[in-house]
């Protein structure tokens, strides 16, 4: 077969062209940063349009393209739709940070777009080598983004930690791939599934070790406990304007990859991997919630809360293929919430700031009602208050886990989410009921237009899918891997 399906890599081509153009235009013309932003916006728009085209094409006829490398199925198309929108919102959030980078703005935009291409490929990879390459494209871009402020000691530290632990996780993941290859004789996700469906392994030790290492490697990337130690330091040490993107993007792509590998390649072995995933989920919700309560810096608090949310998302995954739609529902709505929360932080503690003590938020409601209102909505949603997307997503994953027979996990999750309300509500109380103290509450409160658009989008997504989840549910229930 010699024909090439350009549609399967359409969004990736659009974003890569955007990267090349941004960098070339920068060195050739040294334009105003607005022009670079326009190029990025155009390539994201093209990527989005092509992702929608993929969705239309793939929902009738899902197929594996490029000799088994990339899947063109609703799962990949949906991932790419979500990631292009997420990328656009993330660029709006990061815009004040991009503007103050001066001549380095082009590199920054290019890195965001590059990591997005990696994330999109992670959602579509149908071959372990493709998945590894996509994972590395994403991770390497994010290592650089974490340390983009070279002269900031916190960013340096975040970058080194992210790099060392991230590379370690990649090596663990890769050894998992090698062991699974030893057991199944195939590096294709679907080839492995075929082999496991047709053959009964006499000795499954190598396969189980492989699956275990694979899950550990990906759990590192989505910051699930006990592989989470890097997350708080990295999300705090990175500039506030970009921490949200790092959290949200890595979660969407990481869970897409994890879900596809788990339910397609190792679907026949669900009774072996699901208990392990359940244990990681339980540890994540407990550790994330407990440590978030102890934080006095809002970025660290959000990082620990993202660990807890990783646990909730894994709770949906223990149900296998039945849980995948709700994993999508959770990860998509959560990604926008965490992006919005970090957007508020990037205003209050400055787009390039790394520290953001909670005391800065005392009396924020009087100084900046819009910011306080957005953050309050997002805190309610992350805490799981009804009428928000966060409540429904928790409900769905819990229901799936109960159906799959993991009642104990749901009990742990429910207790943790009640305990979690403490630190989410604490932020709201601080903003609305505490008077502004003399030395605290010094943060900046001016909201630029790009940020206003981003915050509105996030608030609409959080509320709309919390009240009318139907449309998104329809989409995610058909966004299944081939």
């Amino acid at each position, binding site marked *: 077969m010699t024909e090439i399906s350009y549609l399967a890599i359409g969004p990736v081509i659009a974003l890569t062209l955007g990267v090349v153009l941004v960098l070339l235009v920068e060195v050739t013309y040294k334009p105003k940063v607005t022009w670079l932003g326009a190029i990025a916006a155009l390539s994201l728009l093209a990527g989005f349009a092509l992702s929608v085209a993929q969705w239309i094409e793939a929902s009738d006829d899902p197929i594996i393209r490029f000799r088994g490398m990339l899947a063109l199925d609703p799962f990949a198309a949906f991932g790419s739709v979500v990631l292009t929108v997420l990328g656009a919102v993330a660029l709006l959030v990061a815009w004040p940070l991009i503007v103050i980078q001066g001549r380095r703005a082009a590199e920054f935009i290019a890195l965001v777009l590059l990591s997005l291409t990696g994330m999109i490929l992670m959602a579509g990879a149908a071959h*372990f*080598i493709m998945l*590894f*390459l996509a994972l*590395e494209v994403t991770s*390497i871009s994010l*290592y*650089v983004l974490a*340390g983009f402020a*070279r002269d900031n*000691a*916190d960013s*340096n*530290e*975040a*970058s*080194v*930690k992210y*790099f*060392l632990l991230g*590379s*370690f996780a*990649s*090596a*663990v993941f*890769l*050894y998992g*791939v*090698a*062991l699974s*290859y*030893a057991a199944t*004789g*195939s*590096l294709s996700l679907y080839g492995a599934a075929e082999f496991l469906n047709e053959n009964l392994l006499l000795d499954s030790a190598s396969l189980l070790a492989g699956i275990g290492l694979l899950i550990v490697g990906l759990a590192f990337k989505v910051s699930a406990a006990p592989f989470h130690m890097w997350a*708080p*330091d990295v999300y*705090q*040490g990175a500039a506030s304007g970009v921490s949200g993107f790092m959290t949200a993007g890595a979660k969407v792509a990481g869970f897409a990859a994890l879900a596809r590998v788990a339910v397609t390649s190792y679907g026949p072995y669900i009774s072996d991997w699901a208990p392990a995933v359940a244990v990681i989920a339980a540890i994540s919700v407990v550790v994330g919630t407990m440590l978030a309560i*102890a*934080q*006095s*810096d809002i970025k*660290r608090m959000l990082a620990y809360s993202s660990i807890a949310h990783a646990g909730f998302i894994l709770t949906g995954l223990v149900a296998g293929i039945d849980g995948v739609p709700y994993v999508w529902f959770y990860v998509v709505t959560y990604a926008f919430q965490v992006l919005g929360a970090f957007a508020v932080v990037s205003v209050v503690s400055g787009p390039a700031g790394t520290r953001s003590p909670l005391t800065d938020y005392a009396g924020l409601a009087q100084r900046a009602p819009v910011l306080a209102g957005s953050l309050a909505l997002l805190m309610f949603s992350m805490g799981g208050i009804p009428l928000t997307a966060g409540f429904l997503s928790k409900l769905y994953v819990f229901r799936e886990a109960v159906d799959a027979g993991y009642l104990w996990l749901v009990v742990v999750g429910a207790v943790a989410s009640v305990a979690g309300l403490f630190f989410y509500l604490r932020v709201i109380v601080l903003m609305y009921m505490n008077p502004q103290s003399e030395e605290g509450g010094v943060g900046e409160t001016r909201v630029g237009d790009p940020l206003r658009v981003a915050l509105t989008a996030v608030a609409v997504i959080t509320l709309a899918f919390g009240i009318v989840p139907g449309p998104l549910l329809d989409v995610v229930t058909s966004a299944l891997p081939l």
Partner: protein
Amino acid sequence: MDVTAGWYLALGAVLFVIGASGMLLRRNALVMFMSIELMLNAVNLTFVAIGRHTGDLNGQVAVFFVMVVAAAEVVVGLAIMIAVFRRRSSASVDDLAVLNG
């Protein structure tokens, strides 16, 4: 005595464990990074051994990808470490403990 694929897999496993222990025990960022490279090479050995054993080319080709990605990682990693080294004149990760809690 025949040297079968099993021996190579065992050697790969041993090298991987040595690399992982180095990563977890050593305190110099450069040495930690070298340990990660050792882990990747252990994976490479495993890949070629299996590829040779099953006669499947995928295993051999995978190694090229891993090597190229490892090289890309080195580029970024050393740049990050130089940025840190300029500020602190030390490559020990114990000095990088400002962010905690």
